[in-house]
């Protein structure tokens, strides 16, 4: 065991160097060809398949699985990409336990659904590793579309627009495309630089120019885009973070920033992490921050959530994953104060909570947990300033962009999708579905 394991405070190199690679390897090993065929054979090829209806992108799951079973992985990959060009990433990150696999009839039958996600990964890996391209662009339309944000929503939109023959320019504030695929998804879900490999694969269709380091509200303005392009798609995700409303909150670290840093780190042993870590939140981000802290060598990691287990946004699978990694999840605790000494975090003061006529209130009882690092992961917010500072005002709803069923915003020729719109599910796969459908809507509008 490395000496660093019990180093006080926030420190790097807590583990033996080899340990990092092992800790951050694939969460689910990819299937071998034989494993894939055996698993594929478990699929019943259901009629009007429940799994397919549970997929936000409506992939024809029984068909792609049958194509694996019949040794046609490329046909299978095309079936997937027809509906979801980011099917490779979705195979890795979708909470399948609450989507397709929850709906699988074999879940009802025996509690063991067909492993749809892993099969999807198998087929898409074959196509991407062999760099087989399935789509040709339609004849050039001469129309130009601007896409803001190179996350799942923007990329899916760009690809579908390119298929329709339009020329697409994607602007992204960050240095690399991919959005949260590149900066947010837990490292053990997307290993070996898959996010960039997928972007490279996807843009090979042609007609897509990605311009990184260009932010709406900084280098570019919505008014300019509307003037220069035939249509605009906004897929900017969520730029802001919810406040804890706790004293000393500035000493807490934004979990999403921590994860982004981790995802971009070339040497994980150089990444500092607390010996005792407290994560505030109850969703996927909280779980990811907690688990990855643990994997970096934190001795003691606790998630504090202000409501009960059943209210957590993280799925049971995610909660079990945290538990399996030695993370403690505590419920009915709300943060009151981040405790510091000489500018360093020493702990967090929390108050027990309860439901009083369906309203969450503090009980007055207080708990202090010692901590060297506190992460806040209580949800992200849409940073609307980028929009409204740079052009005409777009209608919002619950703090996010308001769109209709096709993804049209209140502004003419401006569409939006992904996390930045109201009423979504904040999942990669939903972002893909919205981007794709907005592209079809844009195409119809441009054709008219």
């Amino acid at each position, binding site marked *: 065991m490395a000496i660093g394991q019990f180093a006080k405070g926030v420190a790097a190199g807590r583990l033996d160097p080899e340990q990092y690679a092992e800790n951050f390897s694939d969460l689910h090993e990819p299937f071998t060809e*034989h494993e894939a*065929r055996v698993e594929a*054979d478990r699929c*019943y090829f*259901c*009629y*009007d*398949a429940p799994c397919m209806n549970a997929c936000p992108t409506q992939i024809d799951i029984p068909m792609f699985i049958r194509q694996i079973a019949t040794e046609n992985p490329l046909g299978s990959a095309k079936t997937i990409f027809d509906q979801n060009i980011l099917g490779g990433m979705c195979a890795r990150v979708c909470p399948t336990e609450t989507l397709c696999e929850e709906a699988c*009839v074999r879940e009802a*039958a025996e509690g063991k659904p067909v492993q749809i996600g892993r099969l999807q990964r198998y087929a898409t890996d074959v196509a991407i590793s062999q760099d087989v391209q399935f789509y040709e662009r339609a004849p050039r339309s001469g129309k130009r579309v601007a896409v803001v944000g190179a996350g799942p929503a923007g990329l899916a939109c760009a690809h579908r627009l390119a298929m329709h023959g339009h020329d697409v320019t994607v602007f992204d504030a960050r240095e690399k495309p991919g959005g949260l695929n590149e900066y947010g998804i837990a490292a053990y879900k997307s290993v070996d630089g898959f996010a960039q490999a997928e972007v490279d694969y996807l843009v090979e269709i042609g007609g897509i120019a990605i311009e990184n380091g260009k932010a709406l509200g900084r280098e570019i303005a919505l008014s300019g885009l509307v003037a220069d392009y035939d249509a605009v798609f906004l897929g900017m995700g969520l730029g802001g973070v919810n406040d804890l409303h706790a004293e000393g909150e500035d000493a807490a670290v934004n979990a999403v920033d921590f994860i982004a840093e981790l995802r971009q780190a070339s040497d994980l042993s150089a990444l500092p992490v607390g010996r005792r870590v407290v994560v505030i939140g109850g969703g996927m981000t909280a779980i990811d921050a907690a688990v990855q802290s643990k994997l970096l060598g934190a001795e003691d990691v606790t998630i504090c959530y202000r409501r009960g287990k059943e209210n957590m946004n993280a799925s049971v699978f995610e909660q079990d994953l945290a538990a399996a990694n030695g993370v403690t999840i505590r419920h009915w605790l709300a943060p009151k104060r981040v405790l510091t000494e000489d500018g360093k975090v020493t702990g967090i003061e929390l108050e027990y909570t309860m439901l009083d006529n369906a309203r969450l209130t503090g009980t007055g009882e207080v708990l202090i947990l010692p901590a060297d690092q506190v992460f806040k992961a209580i949800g992200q917010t849409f940073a609307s300033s980028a929009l409204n500072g740079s052009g005409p005002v777009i209608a919002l709803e619950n703090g996010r962009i308001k769109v209709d069923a096709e993804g049209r915003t209140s502004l003419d020729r401006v569409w939006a999708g992904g996390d930045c719109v109201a009423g979504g599910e904040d999942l990669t796969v939903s972002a893909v579905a919205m981007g794709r459908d907005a592209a079809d809507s844009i195409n119809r509008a441009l054709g008219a």
Partner: protein
Amino acid sequence: MADLTTTFAGIKSPNPFWLASAPPTDKAYNVVRAFEAGWGGVVWKTLGEEGPPVVNVNGPRYGAIWGADRRLLGLNNIELITDRDLQTNLREIKQVKRDWPDRALVVSIMVPCEEESWKAILPLVEETGADGIELNFGCPHGMSERGMGSAVGQVPEYVEMVARWCKQYTRMPVITKLTPNITDIRKPARAAFSGGSDAVSLINTINSITAVDLDSFSPEPSIDGKGTHGGYCGPAVKPIALSMVSEIARDPEMRGKLISGIGGITTWRDAAEFMALGAGTVQVCTAAMTYGFKIVQEMITGLSNYMDEKGFTSVDDLVGRAVPNVTDWQYLNLNYVTKARINQDLCISCGRCHIACEDTSHQAIFNEVDGKRMFVVNDEECVGCNLCVNVCPVEDCITMEQLAPGQLDERTGKRVAEDYANWTTHPNNPMAKVREPAE
């Protein structure tokens, strides 16, 4: 515990499970291991004439069909009869029989279709003390091109003639092994018995090509880019073998004749089914080649437990028990009306029954009830065909329920008649006549 000992054409064995003539019985080494494992008998790998033995190909001799997890479903081979010297085989047979007197040791023989050839080999085999001989008229590849094996088995006159020679030149019991590569299995079987055979055994392997390599365009197994048809065996052939066995068992001309059942027997249950259709012993090849000799223990205990459960004390209680229930289509009761019933507690809503019935049968399963996904049989359309039962992935989820006499069949609008009635008397049958059903 039920008594599994069998006496078949005078040949005794401690259980009805014999190894068929094939690689598992090619030499003393294998046969001794088989006896140690508990097999009741063996039919030694087919012997040929004195002189230089046949040669086998030196590349792959098997092709196969698999289920998804590589479960072997069907095997095909292009192996010939023994490629070992006759004298070596005879020496080993003699030794093994001496060491294992309680086991059945039958010797399979295939020599040219000439009286002299048979007359020459029979005394040599008899001298070993073997319990009997099996005439290999079945092998569908290689040997048949040389006028032996299935080339003989496909001509009833030859079958009868060779059987007669054998009865003439040996006192050993004669079992004639039949080829399934023929239209009516009863013809060669009858011929075998008219020639004096004590029993028939069937089936030998079925002409087959298991696969074609879609890169080299060679049939499998491929020998230097070329392939030939081989003999198919294993679980896939069981239904064909069962039917052929039953055809012989229920043939009035062959009533009570001895049958050794072969073809795809893999478990005690398969064996029991062959026996119920009239097989006095069963022979196994592919299952042993897939799993090794130990499987016989599963067969012995399985059959024995089953017989205990049924109160059968000896195998004779089981042999032939299903034969009276095999009949011709025309005698099936047309007043037996069934409807599919779906057990909603077991149903997992996969929809396979619906789409099977909707696309390919009688549009008799609803996929929605009150706007909700649910699978329910529409009695007005259900013809009771059983397809849905066969495609449903959940065992016993769909059952076929008989409509009692007097109940209304909503499809025909008629009440189910009480009495038995079949096609021979049906008004739609232009050749209808009043006739008694077959027994």
